[in-house]
């Protein structure tokens, strides 16, 4: 036993990858399961806000791009559940934990998509924030998760450019398209900042995750990195980020900005965002009303073994 513990510690200390066959501390395993599952759930729930505009995309080209993107999200969910399964929990159990409300998913998906511009803004800001959060995870100490993140980050970065392109087209469009783009950015800016979680001072779990090489940067550091990336992009787009106190701080070498309303974040996490109930009802309905289909597939497979 001593050997495996030392081997694990050695892997962590030398920034190598822990693999499914390796011994790992129970808390490390539990932390990873929680985090990977939450990430998988987010991909699956995250299909909904964008799928909301699939039937109404304003051009066939954009419809195809959006469809491929939502499909990628389902694919990411599948990789991530597979990564979580390497830790010994079957997907069904994880899905049940989501449906029963025992697991969370990213709170950003509890905001509604109210215009076509939201498809652009989600790509630009939400996928942008996800990438900032996730790129460090490509070096996560758990091998299967790190490898899944390499592929996912590549695709997310593609989605982010597509979203930016949607907004870019809108901001060069008619007066009403420009209004739509700005109004969308106004709604999504603070929820996107909130994607990095509570401020470091209030963040639980972080220290141990850092030590284990699961987390690499603090919430506030990542949030700052995101703001610094967005400001020049917003300038090129020609949209105003809805923060009157957003300005360059020469001393810090970063932009100063107003942090998101963490009380709002906590309310959304707790279930009281604008769309929590809709998202969960949708997911449960997709699952529940197709029990007969899954039963049929199982019965057929059984007959034809």
């Amino acid at each position: 036993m001593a050997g495996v513990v030392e081997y694990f510690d050695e892997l962590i200390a030398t920034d190598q990858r822990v693999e499914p066959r390796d011994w790992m501390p129970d808390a490390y395993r539990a932390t990873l399961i929680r985090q990977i599952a939450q990430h998988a759930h987010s991909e699956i729930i995250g299909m909904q806000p964008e799928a909301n505009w699939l039937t109404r995309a304003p051009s066939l080209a954009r419809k195809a791009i959006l469809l491929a993107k939502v499909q990628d999200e389902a694919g990411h969910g599948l990789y991530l559940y597979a990564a979580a399964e390497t830790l010994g929990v079957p997907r069904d159990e994880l899905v049940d934990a989501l449906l029963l409300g025992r697991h969370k998913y990213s709170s950003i998906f509890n905001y509604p998509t109210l215009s076509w511009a939201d498809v652009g803004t989600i790509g630009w800001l939400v996928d942008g924030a996800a990438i900032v959060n996730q790129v460090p995870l490509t070096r996560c100490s758990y091998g299967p998760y790190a490898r899944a993140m390499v592929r996912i980050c590549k695709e997310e970065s593609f989605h982010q450019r597509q979203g930016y392109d949607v907004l870019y087209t809108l901001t060069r469009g008619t007066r009403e398209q420009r209004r739509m783009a700005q109004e969308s950015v106004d709604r999504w800016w603070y929820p996107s900042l909130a994607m990095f979680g509570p401020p470091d001072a209030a963040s639980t779990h972080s220290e141990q995750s850092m030590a284990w090489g699961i987390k690499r940067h603090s919430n506030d550091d990542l949030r700052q990195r995101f703001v610094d990336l967005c400001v020049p992009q917003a300038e090129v787009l020609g949209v105003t980020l809805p923060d009157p106190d957003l300005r360059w701080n020469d001393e810090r070498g970063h932009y100063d900005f107003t942090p998101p309303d963490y009380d709002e974040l906590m309310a959304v996490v707790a279930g009281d965002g604008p769309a929590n109930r809709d998202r969960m009802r949708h997911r449960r309905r997709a699952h529940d009303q197709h029990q007969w289909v899954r039963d049929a597939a199982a019965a057929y497979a059984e007959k034809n073994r």
Partner: protein
Amino acid sequence: MTALAIADDALIAAQRLLAWVSRAPTMEEDVALANIALDQLGVARALLSSLGDEDELAFHREAHEFRNCLLVELPDDPGGSVWGDFGVLTAKLLFLAAYQKMLYDRLADSEPGALGAVAAKARKESAYHLDHATQWTLRLGDGTAESHGRMQDAVDALWPYTHELTGLIERADWLAIVEPVLAKATLARPADGWQPTGGRVGRHTEHLSYLLAEMQSTHRAHPGATW
């Protein structure tokens, strides 16, 4: 059988299919249905582009100007909800894919130009759609008593609309694909009776104009805009 009719079949089929994404029975099926919808959308775009401006054709025609068969415009749930019945989806896809596969095979071999090129690519995709629909038809038809009943209901309800799936294709050839699948799935092949038509001359069901109202809403709300 015009290129426009083929394009409209694909476009309207895509529009129905993509409404399933995030609502499918399994996550794998979300991926598969998105894939099939993307294939259909690809065919629609390639053909519409060969006929004019694809968005003009998709977003600025009225129901009576569409030439798709009635089968593809029927809701997957007769109640008009986006939450469709998976048996209906499966039966529609089986019937459509069998037809499209044969049609594309034929066009790929006979048509020069855009239509032939599109068909040459689409025949492979259709073969996959047909296989996918066949697998589900077997699982549902020969799965549980409930799934058998639901699948039979779907097959019975949609069968009349398959009579419109002709033109370049002989019905006997289409039956030669579909009947063995139904038989293997322990499903009864419905009797031929009522044979509704009209899609090819723009005389549709009441369902198409609702589908179009939704599909065209964003585009039409912004006249002259670029997306």
